[in-house]
Every structure is written in C-alpha cells, then in structure tokens.
C-alpha cells in the first residue's frame, strides 16, 4: 500500500529510493541543521559538513586492519558501503578545542564572559550503531555524571540522527562482542538499511516522520524487511574480531602486574592516536590563553590523552612515568574502571584504535593475552562461525 504524500506513522518501516536522501539533506539544512556526514578527505572517509549527496563516498569502501587504512573503489554504487573512519561524532558534541569563557579584567576584579559563539544544531547522517552507543556513553560522562557540562549539553540536546545499519564489517570491528551493533537499536530519528536499490527506513520519532512528509516512500514488504534483517545478520556473522568480556574488570584488576603490559609497552609509541580516534575517550585539560595586553584571558578546553605524560602530573612528578603504566591506565579504564564509573564499558568495538594505531596494537589481542595466562580460563564461545583471535585461548 503506497503511503507517499503524508507523514509516515511512527514505528513503521518504509522504503525510500536512494536519491531521495537528497531532499532529506536539503530539508535538514532548511530546518536550520548543520548536516554532518561521511565524506572523503585526505585519503580517508571523515566526517564533515555534507550539503549534497555527491559529497558522500558513494561507490567507495575502506580496507582496514591493525595499523592500516586504505580507500578503494567499490564495484557497485553503494552509498554507505564502508565502516567507520578516523573521526567520530564526539568531535562535534565535545569539540577538540573549545573556548569555555573569557575573563576580562575590570578595575578591581574580573568578569566572566561566556563564549557567545552560536552552538550549531547538528544532524548526524550515517551514524553507526557503535557510534550511537558511544554517544550514549559520553552522555553518561557529560550529562548524567557528577556534574552537567553545559557545553556538551548545548550541542547534544537537539541533535538529529539518521543512523545507518552496517552492511559490512571491517576486520577491525568487534561490536558484536560489545553488544553495540551492527544494528542500530535506539538513539536515532531515522535508521537506514541499504539494499542494492533502496533504503529501508525505520521511522523512530515524530520529527523523523516529518522529514519524510511528501516524499515518494512506500511501506516495506515482508520480503524487503527480510532482506534488511539479512543485511545486519550477515554483517554480524562476518565479524572476525572478538573480545571476551566476561569478568573483565576483575580480570584486569587482578593482573595489573601481568608481563603483557611490559610487552605492549615495547610496541606502544604513546602517540595518543587511540584516544583521539576513540569515540568515548573524554579526558581533557583546560588551559589559559592570555591576550597580549593582559586584560583578557580565555579558558580553553582541549582534548587530552592518558598517553601524555602530563596527564597525571602532580607537584613533584608524574603519576604514570612510563608507557607501560600509561597503556595500562588506558586499557583498564576503557574496559574495567569505566564500568565502575558509569555502569557500562567504555569500549563499543568500533575498532578505530586498532586501525589507527601506527604499530597495529590490538585491544582485543591484548585482553586475550592477559586472559590466556591470567589465571582465568577462557571458555570458547559458540560465535556465529567467527574465528577466535590469536592467543585468545
């Protein structure tokens, strides 16, 4: 039954011709959104403003492995035939550099002038399930933690999300282990599954429905729904990497002196790449930028990394003076203390830290090595035909 012309009912799944994503983009810009989506720059699929469909990496894919990333032409014209790149949405919600406020000297005091720059209203096009989980995880830090960060709040509040269910997994992906994908379950207005010649669209919110009003969509047939379900099922089944999450906090806390930390410390360059590409890492510093006449000083927030020696500086020295202790901090925070702090793991299995590590350090392999000789017996899981990573048993 055709539904075209009106507003689709909530919770329905409809079929949309691929080029009709174009009018959706236009409508979002017209409604005042800054639309961010995947696009090609500097040899990678990054996130940036997207105004036209031809800015999307249509017909491109990415090849990823530990320490390797390469773009390649696809045989078909898929719109979203690739996985996640070096950027994540956190750079929009939690900008790498943000002026918090300016202190202006007055006669006998100073005034705090809030940053007056308007906060963009973002629409995220093409957000993957792992990244939606990552946003939820950062929400716990910045919105539902001990205090609310008003800067994050202002950016996060009105975000419009068009999710894309992954139609393929990179060899670095392990969202099935983290239970964060590949199908987007929540946190979006619309979710697309790409079939060879159409998008199957889940309509999750009234504003998502409004966006489709008047477009030539139609209700999905049972066959089309089945095809969409198969796309994510096949993606899940093809996932090669695994991370065994059983008792992870205790496993890591009980193995803080495991020899594997020395081993990884020899390979790790402490370059901070993993923390920069990680969609959940939130450590930051606040610095003062004075102007030359001494009348004004800006307080600027900058991303920091636990791989920077000064991250743990205290008067008289560094809390974590070597790479071993810094890598251990990162891994135990991500997979153990994060759970103590926020009730969820800090890892969504997106694999970015593996791809973008210049020496290809693999978080799943490090955990498996510790588990393999950490006194916790690894139990083989009946995973959907997936092979165990090296050293995991």
């Amino acid at each position, binding site marked *: 039954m055709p539904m075209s012309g009106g507003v689709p009912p909530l919770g329905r799944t409809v079929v949309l011709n691929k080029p009709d994503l174009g009018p959706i983009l236009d409508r979002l810009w017209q409604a005042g959104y800054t639309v961010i989506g995947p696009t090609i720059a500097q040899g990678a699929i990054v996130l940036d403003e997207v105004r036209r469909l031809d800015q999307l990496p249509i017909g491109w894919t990415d090849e990823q492995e530990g320490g390797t990333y390469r773009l390649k032409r696809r045989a078909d014209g898929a719109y979203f035939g690739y996985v996640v790149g070096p950027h994540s949405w956190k750079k929009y919600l939690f900008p790498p550099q943000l002026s*918090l406020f300016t*202190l202006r000297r007055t006669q006998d005091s100073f005034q705090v002038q809030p940053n007056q720059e308007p906060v963009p209203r973002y629409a995220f096009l093409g957000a993957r399930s792992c990244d939606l989980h990552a946003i939820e995880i950062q929400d716990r830090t910045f*919105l539902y933690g*001990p*205090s609310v960060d008003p800067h994050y709040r202002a950016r996060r509040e*009105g975000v419009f999300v068009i999710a894309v269910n992954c139609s393929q997994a990179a060899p670095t992906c392990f969202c099935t282990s983290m239970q964060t994908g590949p199908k987007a379950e929540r946190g979006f207005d619309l979710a697309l599954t790409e079939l060879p010649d159409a998008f199957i669209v889940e309509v999750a919110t009234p504003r998502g429905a409004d966006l489709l009003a008047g477009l030539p969509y139609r209700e999905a047939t049972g066959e089309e729904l089945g095809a969409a379900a198969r796309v994510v099922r096949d993606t899940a089944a093809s996932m090669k990497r695994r991370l065994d999450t059983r008792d992870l906090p205790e496993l890591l806390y009980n193995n803080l002196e495991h020899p594997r930390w020395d081993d990884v410390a020899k390979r790790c360059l402490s370059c901070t790449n993993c923390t920069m590409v990680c969609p959940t890492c939130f450590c930051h510093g606040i610095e003062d930028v004075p102007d030359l006449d001494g009348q004004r000083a800006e307080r600027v927030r900058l991303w920091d990394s636990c791989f920077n020696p000064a991250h743990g500086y*205290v008067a008289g020295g560094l809390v974590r*003076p070597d790479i071993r202790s810094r890598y251990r901090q990162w891994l135990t925070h991500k997979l153990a203390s994060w759970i103590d702090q926020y009730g969820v793991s800090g890892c969504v299995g997106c694999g970015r830290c593996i791809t973008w590590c210049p020496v290809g350090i693999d978080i799943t392999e490090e955990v498996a090595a510790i588990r393999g000789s950490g006194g916790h017996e690894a139990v083989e899981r009946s995973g959907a035909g997936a092979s165990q990573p090296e050293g995991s048993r």
Partner: protein
Amino acid sequence: MTPSDVRLQSFPPDGLPDPFGPEPAVIRAVEPETPGVATFWLELQDAGRQAAYRCEPGQFNMLLVPGVGEVPISISSASGEQPGIGHTIRFVGTVTRVIERLRPGDVLGLRGPYGKGWPLEQARGQDILVVAGGLGLAPLRPVIRMLLARRSEYGRLLLLYGARQPVDLLYHREYAGWEQQGLAMLVTVDRADATWTGRVGVVPTLLGRIDFDPTRTIAFICGPEIMMRFTVYELLARRLAPGRVFLSIERNMQCGVGLCGRCQLGPYFVCKDGPVFAFNRIGRFVNQEHF
C-alpha cells in the same frame, strides 16, 4: 520538533551554572608559614556568596590566576573562620609562583568547594589519631579545629606530625592552644641540628611511641604518599581495620567535578570521590606502582 526520544533519563535542564566558571575572590590576608609556604585568606567578592560559602574539612578549591592557570588547593580553614577561606600554598608550580607575588587586595578566581572530606560524623565518639606530614597538615587543620570545637563528642585526640626540618613545621603558633583544648601532640622532624630539642625521626617512628585501641580509633592521614603508605602498614600491623584508616590522596585535579578524567585512581575520580578515602576502598589501587 521533539528531541531524539532515547534518553538514559530526563535531559538535564538548561541554564545550569558552568562548572568551570570561577568567582572573583579578594585576598584579605597573607600569612607567611614556613620557607616557601604561606596561607592566603580569601573572601568571595560577592558578599552574599561569601556569607553562604560552606565547606567541609578535607575539601579543596580551585584557585585561578587569570591568564596563568588554575590549581587545586585544599581548604585549611574551618567553615566560617576569619579572616576568610584559608589556603596554605607551597610555591612550587607555575601558578603558585605567581600567587606567591600577590598581596592583600589582589583578586583571584575561586571555585569550589569540591570533593569529599574527612568522615567527622562517622568519627563521633571515637578516638581520633591524626597523622600528618609536611604540608599534609593543611587539610587536617580544619579537622583539628572542628574536633576541638566539639571536644566532648570525641574520645582521645592525638596528632602525630612530622616535617623535614624544624622551620618547616606548619601552624606552630597554634600548637599550644590545641594542646590546651585537649589535643595530645607528638611532633618530629626528619633532620635537625643540636639546637632542636624535640624529636628527630620520620613520622611513622612516632607510631611506635603511642598506644591506641584499634576497636575505637579512627586514623586520618595526610602527607607524601610514601609517608602515608608506611603509616598505613604500621597501623594495619597493629590491627586497625582498613575501614578505619582514611587518607587524603593527591592526583592531577583539573576540573574538580569529575569530568576531565585526569585525577583517576582506578575506579575513582579523586576530585569527586575523594580526596579523602577509606583505605579499604583504595588500598588495592594506591599500593599499585604507577597506577
């Protein structure tokens, strides 16, 4: 349009104060303490805010020198003490070296108080053993004042305090008054010449000279991490339960409100979960090298 429907809980309201925003605070007095250390007494410039300012012993403030930077400083005064909010500062870093040059009337940025302080309620009716090393007496000074203000509500009050040299002993003008009000004190220094007639030896050696009842004693410890570690070893060996031993931990606190991630100690953010912790909660992490 309504916001995206999935929320962990209701979206926090708009218009909350910026947790990073400082308030202007005037330096009312500067009291030299020991070489390289002075106490800065600050008052929020807004009289209403100053009147409403409350803090618990063991909490800290973030002090900001505009254009230079911000540092966490423990509050060394009790709530409502005159002439303001006391901060005993050692001039060792970029920011504190600038603070060193400031004088009464100058203005700093202040935000706080932050963190969880010493468990004075839990300590009611107990014997209190305070062990301090060097500048570690600063966050314990308000504890001592509050214990003495409610002297009858506590059992024995004993302070063991050590510093590097006799000239480094903080607040020595106050010792006689504390002792008069019912605090027993043992003071020691690490090194001294023959003009010093007090004790010589590191703080933990004082533990050998005292008796305490482990079933009714609570220990509050603050000082360099090694000094605290050795003190804890000794207290535990003498059967004080780890849950009765409290330490104030130093980490890199930058935001003060559990957001920036830099003061982590295992599962804890020292700025909001501490800086005071019971040893049974942090022993496993604080004794872990470089963790």
